[in-house]
């Protein structure tokens, strides 16, 4: 059977509809950033549901949303608003997202551990003050870190 015949026969039997995969793939590429975050949140939510021995229906009830909305969240395919994240966190009783650049300036006289202290971009803020300061920084990935700006 010649190659042309195969192409001809294929052309006759191919579905008139397109696969739809390319559109899906382009969507995933264009929205890569928030999709990754949504996937991480989905993993945390599923872990927590297992800990609590809850099903998705119970979470939907606690959040006062539909089961379909919870289903989208646990697939990691939902562009969550801050309001939805807050609702999720309250229902599950855990923190899902920790924002970076949260800084609390405290006195340099405070007895904080000095080992491992380092300079950070926060120095610009604290250098305006007369006394050396210790800046307390929370990041998305780490626990609270002490930063000495003196």
């Amino acid at each position, binding site marked *: *059977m010649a190659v042309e015949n*195969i192409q001809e026969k294929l052309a006759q*039997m191919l579905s008139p509809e397109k*696969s739809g*995969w*390319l559109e899906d793939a382009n969507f995933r590429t264009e929205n890569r950033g928030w999709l990754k975050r949504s996937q991480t949140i989905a993993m945390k939510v599923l872990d927590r549901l297992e800990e609590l021995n809850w099903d998705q229906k119970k979470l939907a009830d606690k959040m006062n949303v539909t089961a379909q909305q919870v289903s989208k969240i646990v697939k990691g395919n939902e562009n969550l608003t801050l309001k939805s994240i807050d609702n999720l966190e309250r229902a599950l009783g855990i923190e899902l997202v920790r924002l970076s650049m949260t800084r609390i300036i405290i006195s340099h006289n405070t007895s904080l551990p000095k080992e491992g202290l380092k300079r950070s971009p926060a120095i610009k803020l604290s250098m305006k003050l007369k006394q050396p300061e210790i800046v307390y920084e929370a990041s998305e990935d780490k626990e609270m870190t002490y930063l000495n700006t003196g």
Partner: protein
Amino acid sequence: MKIVSIFEVLKECLLSVQYDENEIDVFRYIMGCWRDVEYLRNFFKKHDKDLTSGFYGEITINEAIRRTLDEAEELERNIKEIAQRGQTDKTNTLQTLFRPLKKTEENVPEHQKSKVYGTQRKSWLRIYAIRIGPNLFVISGGAIKLTPNMEPEHLMDELRKLEITKNYLKEKEIFDEDDYELLEF
């Protein structure tokens, strides 16, 4: 199970079957599953023994999910790139992605059962397809392969789907085993 239609995934080179129990073609379906955290978690829970057997080293379920999400992303990107390059560069085709299903076979017939690997080293993602002509593939399914063999039930299912697809193509006279040498052309 029967095939209801064949979809063109990439123009004139990559096709996918759609089984009667699915609303979308199988390639689109598996690429969606590999980006679905809930699906992946259920899969790895079900195949926990294979996951922790040591073939892929020590790994938690969440690490396995993240790894799959990342591998699927890279695989998808490579297929898209080949689709774009293929329009101008005829040497970089899907043929470079697919490998023989049985590594011992040296003379690859036209309808060679093939699988495409995820691009990372020791990737566990597999797409199964039948090559029916030069750079012309029909995808029958895909799987996460956690074992060195095809013994787990979900992998046996993939072998069955390859056979079903092959028989369907024969029935539709898309390829003929007796004529396969001509297809080399």
